[in-house]
């Protein structure tokens, strides 16, 4: 299959499925569910096929598609995959498939729900595959619309508030990104090509350069935009509301994939396009990352709502992503990175943490959803003793929670340890802070397990509704747990995909910063 067909099919197959859903009778809900499931499964298959076509040894963009779209504005339909986007694409199609399976719990307006779900998947895959900034922006915003309705219509009691808050935050971030986009466009001789812009940002293109002011301003704008999505402290406040109010499958997508878009944006756009700005802000980023870790952990500890706890744990976990990316220490004299291998380790750790969190947080939200569907409450103080009532469920849940906790042998461990180790090189204090985050995480997760699954007896309402998991639910939980174990035991599976691209990225960022700072030095003299 040629790249154009393959990549286009991956992006637009879900959207086409959404369109096809219009033709179904509104009453044939079960048929529609299976149809939508088939679409997401087919998309997953296509991404597996993409993985097979993908050559891990190469560091550059592969399977590139570049067709003109809006000629006057140099906007292209420009797609491609590299080692950074490949794992995330796999994660996306997998989580979408699983949360589509989890969508059987949605009972009202099924047709609309499935259509919006599929459009959302198109938006996410489009973001991961775009290499044109304009296209990236379009897909980025496309995700907003279905998400608003998915939270707003099928959400919990405060759904309207949560939906508009989510919309507002993300749109604000998007608008900042738009300004940065214009800055790049007009300072680059009118190009939206992310690779070309990155080359300019790294001082590799004759005749064009983003000067330090542009780099710093643009980086800050981009960073705020992505940090909202990530979410980093202090712009994370939309997340607990959105997660709590969203229906289970949507929470899975939110935590499992949407948060990764923030990290992906930073790696794909903010860092390469303005290395000078990134380095300039590195300390602040590390600090924000560390604060997010600790803040998220403490906040999680204070929650009594099960879903809110998982939501804050996401803030904490995504803090590692930011921390790992930003541990870029330089030699003040010549601008070269000090301990570049550590930084590389941090970057790899951050990437892996995104994948691991994608699996574990989706799993955690799913597990919360399973029990919520039965007892219709999420008050941590009104659980207990589920181990006796639902042994299968509790076993799987504990496994997944341990993955989130970062138990060695499970996926969460690898990313966190990589990030903490690399931070040691950057700042020992912050490394200790980050490591203490691991302990806090262990604290609140163990406490949660104790309160929910252990304990003498179930204390909450609807005890009579507690039934064992059905086959569909077991399949989802098992899949997630297996992935958590596989990634924990054999992280190389993903590391080998991203390694060469990551290496190349670090090298070019380092060189890019040196080039730009050398130019600044010359200008100052």
């Amino acid at each position, binding site marked *: 299959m040629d790249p154009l067909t393959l990549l286009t099919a991956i992006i637009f197959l879900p959207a086409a499925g959404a369109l096809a859903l219009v033709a179904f009778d509104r009453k044939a809900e079960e048929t529609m569910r299976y149809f939508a499931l088939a679409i997401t499964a087919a998309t997953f298959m296509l991404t597996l096929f993409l993985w097979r076509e993908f050559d891990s040894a190469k560091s550059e963009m592969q399977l590139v598609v570049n067709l003109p779209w*809006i000629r006057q504005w140099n906007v292209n339909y420009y797609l491609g995959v590299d080692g950074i986007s490949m794992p995330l694409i796999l994660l996306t199609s997998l989580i979408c498939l699983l949360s589509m399976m989890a969508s059987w719990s949605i009972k009202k307006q099924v047709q609309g729900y499935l259509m919006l779900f599929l459009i959302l998947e198109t938006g996410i895959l489009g973001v991961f595959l775009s290499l044109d900034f304009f296209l990236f922006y*379009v*897909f980025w*915003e496309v995700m907003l619309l279905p998400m608003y309705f998915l939270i707003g219509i099928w959400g919990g009691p405060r759904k309207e508030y949560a939906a*508009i808050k989510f919309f507002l935050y993300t749109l604000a971030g998007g608008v900042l990104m*738009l*300004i940065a986009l214009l800055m790049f466009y007009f300072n680059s001789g009118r190009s939206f090509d992310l690779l070309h812009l990155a080359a300019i940002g790294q001082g590799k293109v004759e005749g064009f350069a983003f000067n330090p002011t542009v780099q710093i301003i643009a980086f800050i704008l981009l960073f705020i935009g992505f940090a909202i999505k990530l979410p980093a402290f202090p712009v994370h406040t939309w997340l607990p509301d959105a997660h709590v109010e969203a229906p289970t499958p949507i929470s899975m997508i939110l935590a499992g994939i949407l948060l990764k878009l923030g990290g992906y944006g930073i790696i794909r756009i903010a860092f390469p396009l303005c290395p000078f700005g990134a380095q300039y802000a590195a300390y602040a980023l590390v600090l924000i990352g560390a604060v997010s870790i600790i803040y998220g952990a403490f906040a999680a500890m204070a929650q009594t709502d099960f879903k809110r706890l998982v939501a804050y744990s996401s803030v904490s976990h995504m803090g590692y992503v930011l921390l790992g990316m930003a541990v870029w220490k330089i030699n003040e004299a010549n601008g070269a990175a000090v301990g570049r291998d550590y930084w590389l380790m941090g970057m790899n750790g951050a990437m892996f943490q995104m994948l691991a969190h994608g699996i574990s947080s989706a799993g955690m939200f799913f597990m919360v959803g399973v029990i919520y569907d039965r007892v219709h409450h999420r008050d941590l103080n009104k659980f207990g003793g589920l181990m006796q009532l639902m042994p299968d469920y509790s076993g799987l849940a504990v496994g997944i929670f341990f993955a989130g906790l970062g138990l060695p042998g499970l996926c969460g461990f690898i990313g966190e340890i990589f990030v903490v180790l690399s931070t040691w090189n950057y700042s020992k204090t912050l490394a200790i802070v980050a490591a203490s985050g691991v302990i806090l995480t262990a604290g609140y997760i163990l406490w949660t397990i104790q309160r929910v699954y252990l304990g003498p007896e179930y204390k909450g309402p609807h005890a009579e509704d507690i039934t064992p998991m059905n086959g569909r639910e077991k399949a989802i939980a098992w899949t997630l747990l297996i992935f958590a174990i596989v990634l924990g035991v054999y992280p190389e599976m993903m590391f080998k995909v991203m390694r060469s691209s990551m290496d190349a990225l670090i090298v070019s960022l380092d060189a890019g910063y040196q080039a730009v700072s050398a130019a600044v030095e010359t200008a100052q003299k």
Partner: protein
Amino acid sequence: MNFESILTGVMNDASWGRSLGLFAPELILCVSIVALLLLRLVNADRWLPSYLIPLFASLTALGIAVYSFFQMHGAIEGIPTPGTTQTMFTGLLAYDSLTLFLRVFLLGFLALVVTLTMLSGIPDAEDGPDFYTLLLGSTIGMMLMSSANHLLILFLGIEMTSVPSYAMVGFLKGRRVSSEAAFKYVVYGAGAAGVMLYGISLLGGLTGTLEMPVLASRLSALLGPGGMNDPTSRTVALAAMMVLVGLAFKLSVFPFHFWCPDAFEGAAAEVGGYLSVASKGAAFALLVRFLLAFTGGTSVDLTSLNLALGVGLGVVAAATATFGNLAAYSQTNVKRLLAYSTIAHAGYMLMGVAAMVVLLNGPGGVDAAAKGEAATCIEGLLYYLAVYLFMNLGAFAIVAFIRNEIYSEEISDYAGLGRQVPLLGACMMICLFSLIGLPPFGGFVGKFMIFASLFQAGKIHMAMWVILVIGTLNTIFSLFYYLRVLKVMFLESRPEGARRARVSFMPSGAFVLLVTLPLLLLGASPLVNSMSDAATRVASMLVAAVR
């Protein structure tokens, strides 16, 4: 020289024949007005539905306009050269690509509005001929506005547009709000036209001409140094401001917007949709022409005056967008909310015009680069207008169809309609998201182009960057009130006992779909390229004429 010889002279003059040929679309509309009247004399309106004639006329005229548009654009491949601008009727009207673009825009819109009124049943069979006469008359005025090349036509076009539209706003004459809206509209409108005329008189007296293309060179010759200390500069600024007041009134730009919410609430939704799009399109074309007439020449004094004018327009635009968006919050009536949204959108579009003026009056003068960048601004404006046509007409059409079902235009009565009429709900969603300016809908591309031109203009005057930031912030402000409508429609459930809405797919649903589908096409399909290409050509041809 007696009458006969004059007549022979005129008849033998080939340029009249040529002008009449180029003027064919407008002539068709004139003829159909007369036909509407004559048919009534023979009582033909009893058996002939009155919408047939305007529909037929607008489609025929549209065909001619589209043909001539493509003919003109086929003739100029690549970058057009100056001198491709032609005039009609001894220089009273410009016949250039903007004229043709606006003709296609207005006539296409007219056809859509006639179809809408046909489907929604306002006006009824009895009032049809009157209504369509006003509609056609007003459209002729708009077409004159968009091709004005002479200050008389500028005034005449505005009057011809306004006067019938006053009557259209008051068309539901038995309703108190309708007559009140029309009364306020006519009183304020006449005042604005008067102020504008005084400005024209000053401008004409100063430059000794009413022809717009020579204004710039004459002003360059007239203006003295010293900026506002020079009485001539002061007078020119005053006159320009007075003319702009008249245009600002038509555009419902802050602080001349006050008529707009009243008029839209009082008028039928169909009329509101018509006024919000068509008169805005024509007024923007006229504004661009008027401001381009001021641009050019080599005088530093004129350039600095223009630059101040451009920045002033930008500030007004930012204020308009902000005001429109903030005032829309507290509205409970859909039409009133859309009216404030119209004001806000006028603000966005005005930002593009301001950027154009600033870019053309930079320190580098009117060189090729400045022209290219100014062309981008006009391109953005035209793209925005094209998208705006569909999104606003779509929204107003949906309001009209829903009004026919539930007899209400209050937002609170829309509760749960998203489920009851899913097609209209989905289309409303697309229209409103496009109005917010979100991809993948056309509104985003237009807004993006406007913001891009503001960014470029910021390099000449820093204030434009501030305006850009205000513009982007406004996108966020606007989110709330558009989402409020959607929230009510989708997130709330239809209360028990509320009137049930039933809108069949044929023909109403199909019409709404026809109007909203282009939003998607103009936002995320290869059509974006074609549209932007057409707009670029129009813009660069227009700018090429600036000397």
